[in-house]
């Protein structure tokens, strides 16, 4: 499919799904990622202009049937989340085969900032930062309120299964064991939450996937690893030191306090947060990122995707070792 055709096809799709007299302007590709294409453009009708985003696999062709299924699930989940009042983009249409765009979907473009360091430090966000941890708690509660019967097509991952999966990845990716990761696994093994709730879980609720403006949290992005599981996973993932960008003494994303995050969560959900469960998931989170970093290096090491960035990320697992020792030290 030539790029020229792509533009023409997208412009036709906009007329078909948005408005018959809409024209397409300012088409730019936002990511050159190997896994997903993201295009930004405006649909202009008369004097009004609507900012839109197209997401699709490279050239619209899914890598595998599993990837295609994953994208379908992501679209379904986003629609359900939007209808349940979660701060997220609205999906306006999905491309059909006759549109010749491949497998893709078009959503609302929400403007804002996703770069953690800017959110944590820029003066323009100083005022909204005060209330941000609370807002993130509210947003997480809204996500967890999505009725699980509406998303029953998603995988259910119990805390035990979560830990087993991580152990498997660790076994695969570490030729030499890390005594710190071993200690963290041992800590977690004895504390697997058994009386937690089971809800819809976002799975990647952290800086980078949260979009903010000067008015606060605007949108929750990246719905690729959603599942059904323990909701406390989300509340602690945003507290993992890897996403605090230097703000180590402000546990929520390097900008806020846990108490405020929990207060927002409790106000929205009416459910009290048990800090010891969040602690479990925070240790789990640092371990997860440490093990994941090493795995990411193997996409370079095994020749799948050679890149200095992939190689370097393997060494970031020692950041998580240090974070884990702080967490384990506090738990003694």
């Amino acid at each position, binding site marked *: 499919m030539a790029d020229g055709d792509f533009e023409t096809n997208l412009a036709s799709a906009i007329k078909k799904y948005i408005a018959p007299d809409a024209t397409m302007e300012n088409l730019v590709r936002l990511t050159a990622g190997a896994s997903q294409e993201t295009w930004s453009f405006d649909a202009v009708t008369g004097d009004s202009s609507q900012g839109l985003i197209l997401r699709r696999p490279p050239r619209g062709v899914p890598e595998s049937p599993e990837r295609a299924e994953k994208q379908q699930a992501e679209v379904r989940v986003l629609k359900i989340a939007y209808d349940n009042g979660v701060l997220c983009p609205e999906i306006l249409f999905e491309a059909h085969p006759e549109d010749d765009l491949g497998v893709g979907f078009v959503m609302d473009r929400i403007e804002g900032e996703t770069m953690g360091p800017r959110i944590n430090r820029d003066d323009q966000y100083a005022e909204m930062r005060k209330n941000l941890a609370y807002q993130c708690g509210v947003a997480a509660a809204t996500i967890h309120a999505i009725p699980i019967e509406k998303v029953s097509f998603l995988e259910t991952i119990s805390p035990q299964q979560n830990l087993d999966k991580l152990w498997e990845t660790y076994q695969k990716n570490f030729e030499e*064991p890390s*005594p710190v990761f071993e200690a963290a696994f041992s800590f977690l093994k004895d504390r697997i939450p058994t009386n937690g709730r089971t809800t819809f879980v976002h799975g990647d609720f952290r800086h980078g996937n949260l979009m903010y403006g000067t008015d606060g949290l605007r949108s929750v992005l990246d719905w690729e690893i959603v599942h059904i599981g323990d909701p406390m996973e989300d509340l602690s993932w945003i507290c993992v030191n890897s996403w605090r960008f230097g*703000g180590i003494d402000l546990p929520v994303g390097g900008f806020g306090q846990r108490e405020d995050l929990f207060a927002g969560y409790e106000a929205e959900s009416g459910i009290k947060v048990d800090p010891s469960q969040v602690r479990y998931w925070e240790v789990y989170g640092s371990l997860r990122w440490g093990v994941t970093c090493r795995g990411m290096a193997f996409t370079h090491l095994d020749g799948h995707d050679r890149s*200095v960035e992939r190689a370097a990320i393997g*060494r970031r697992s020692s950041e998580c*070792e*240090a974070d884990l020792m702080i967490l*384990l030290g506090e738990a003694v």
Partner: protein
Amino acid sequence: MRTDRPSVDELLEAVEEFLRDHAMPALPGHLSFHARVAANVVGITRREIAQSDQIEADQLQRLVGILKHEGSLKDLNRELSEKIRSGDIKWDDPVLMDHNQKFAIEELGVDNPRYSAFKKAMEEGA
């Protein structure tokens, strides 16, 4: 081993400076980012060369102390990990906690001494 200059460290320093001061500003967004990462990777390499003898000696000494017998660093590290896994050594055993705290800081000191947890450990240790 050569004793003449430029030393390995001085050569790597030259590469690091080239990447950071010349390649990074001249390259477009994505490549500039990769040049920054490459400069960081050279930094890791330099620190590892400079520090690994001392780190390995310290780790070996601690492991011999914990396991009460001699061995290679690799073997003793595996044995320690086995013992944590089996529960013979508890995660909160003060001797293990001490070793792990030092181990984490040693590794991080090579990989990324600018990371917040490293700075915090240095402030608290000082």
